[in-house]
């Protein structure tokens, strides 16, 4: 039961490599909570950015000029500005302008806390990329294939649902993979507004325990595993969707 902590304590005594996180329950807790926050950020922003991308791509192909222009502006702005400044703009800029409630003892409680603002900013950032990815996927479906569906009596919506979307998804999956992996990496920026995610937790540990090198190794390994898991998942998805004889 205590084999792992004992081994790392022994490692520290014999070699000086101090992985506090593996034998000190306090540090371990902080690390695990950081990991949980990173996972929370990653999962929520990935899902939200997919929704933003799908809705944006739909509006982008829609009839309303105004909505098209709006989505266009959103994509252009969020793609061409630093995500870190976006986070600051949302958290400090908009966060202080929004109305806030007060607790019984007069403390200011903002409408959204720093974790929520990080989710909003990161989802919008990755969503802007997803809009473009989905859009290019939809446009890659040949018009004649849509025509074939129409000539079989499919309505526009049904043709979209049964023919266009399944094909578009396959076309844009590699680009989507890249963007989602990038989003996972970008969640580290939430550190800057004191969201206690993995980087934040690890930095706290190394500041107090003076073991920068050891914690840096833990940090790198953590992200290697997280990215690896996401890559593996997306690969499985890609394989599941692969069509024999149809390559792009």
């Amino acid at each position: 039961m205590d084999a792992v902590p004992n081994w790392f304590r022994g490692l520290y005594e014999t070699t000086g490599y101090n992985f506090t996180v593996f034998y000190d329950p306090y540090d371990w807790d902080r690390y695990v909570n950081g990991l949980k926050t990173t996972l929370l950020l990653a999962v929520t922003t990935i899902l939200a950015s997919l929704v933003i991308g799908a809705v944006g791509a739909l509006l982008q192909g829609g009839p309303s000029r105004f909505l098209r222009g709006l989505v266009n502006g959103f994509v252009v702005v969020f793609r061409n500005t630093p995500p870190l400044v976006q986070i600051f703009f949302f958290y400090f800029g908009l966060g202080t302008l929004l109305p806030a409630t007060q607790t019984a003892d007069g403390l200011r409680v903002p409408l959204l806390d720093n974790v929520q603002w990080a989710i909003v900013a990161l989802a919008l950032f990755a969503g802007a990329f997803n809009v473009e990815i989905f859009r290019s996927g939809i446009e890659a479906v040949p018009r004649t294939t849509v025509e074939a569906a129409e000539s079989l009596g499919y309505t526009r919506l049904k043709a979209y649902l049964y023919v266009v979307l399944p094909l578009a998804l396959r076309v844009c999956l590699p680009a989507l993979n890249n963007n989602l992996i990038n989003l996972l990496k970008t969640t580290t920026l939430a550190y800057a507004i004191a969201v206690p995610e993995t980087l934040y937790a690890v930095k706290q540990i190394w500041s107090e325990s003076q073991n920068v090198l050891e914690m840096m190794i833990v940090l790198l390994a953590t992200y290697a595993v997280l990215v690896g898991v996401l890559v593996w998942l997306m690969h499985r998805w890609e394989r599941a969707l692969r069509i024999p004889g149809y390559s792009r």
Partner: protein
Amino acid sequence: MRPRPSTAGDLPVLLPFRVSRTRARFTLGPVRAWLLGAWLAGLVLVMPALAQGPDAVLSPLQVILRWAPLLLTGFAFNVAISLVAMLLGTGAGVGLGLALVSEGPILRRVAWGLTQFFRNVPWLVLLFFVMFLVPFQVTVFGLRVPLPDWIKATVGFALPVMANVAEIVRGAVRSVPATQWEAAESLAFTRRQTLFRIILPQCLKRMLPPWMNVYALIAMATVQASIVGVTEMLTLTAQVHAAEGGRPELFAPLYGFALLCFFLYCYPIDRLTARLERRFETA
């Protein structure tokens, strides 16, 4: 004998981070882009001004105008960091990329590992890595060379550039049909001659758009240097905010100004990249 590296590692992360822009969907004409910029600026400057009372304090617009020279100096520093990082990273990246397509299996594997590592670690983590683990001075031939923070940060940004450039080189070399290698081989070209005289000249053009894309990404990433204590535009923005009394309504205009600067710098690059991509694709 097929000189085709098979460490392919078809991991999607190996692909340069970019999306296909074959169709010019997300474009704004110069006039529209300018209008959008002006509109953003207006939003940023006027909106908080309305919320503000008729006090004697400076309006957000006045604050920006007053501090613009300082903030723009900071922005110029960001651009300088990005340019140096790009220079260093491209040099190292081309070397690493050639190692990725080399014939030596060990060299190829090592290069592949390095590329994977530096591409998949979050840039901010890499930045911490360099800031904390590289000493503040190095001794070369008994000469003590100090390494100020901003140089270390630049190296920290050059590392992901290196990995991305290596990947671009590998992808471009692989995109040249294998028959070109065979043709060169049958003409008794050595491997090195084939690579430098036949293959690379063909794919140089194709590498330009993704390379510019990497540049835009690194330019936008330079603000992360403020997190590790390098004074650049974002640091200065926070200092200006404090100097103006830390009024909450100044946050949005000040950070909005930073957004605007980066937008005006990166959007033209983005447009140019897309245009080149389209031209090379149809050519």
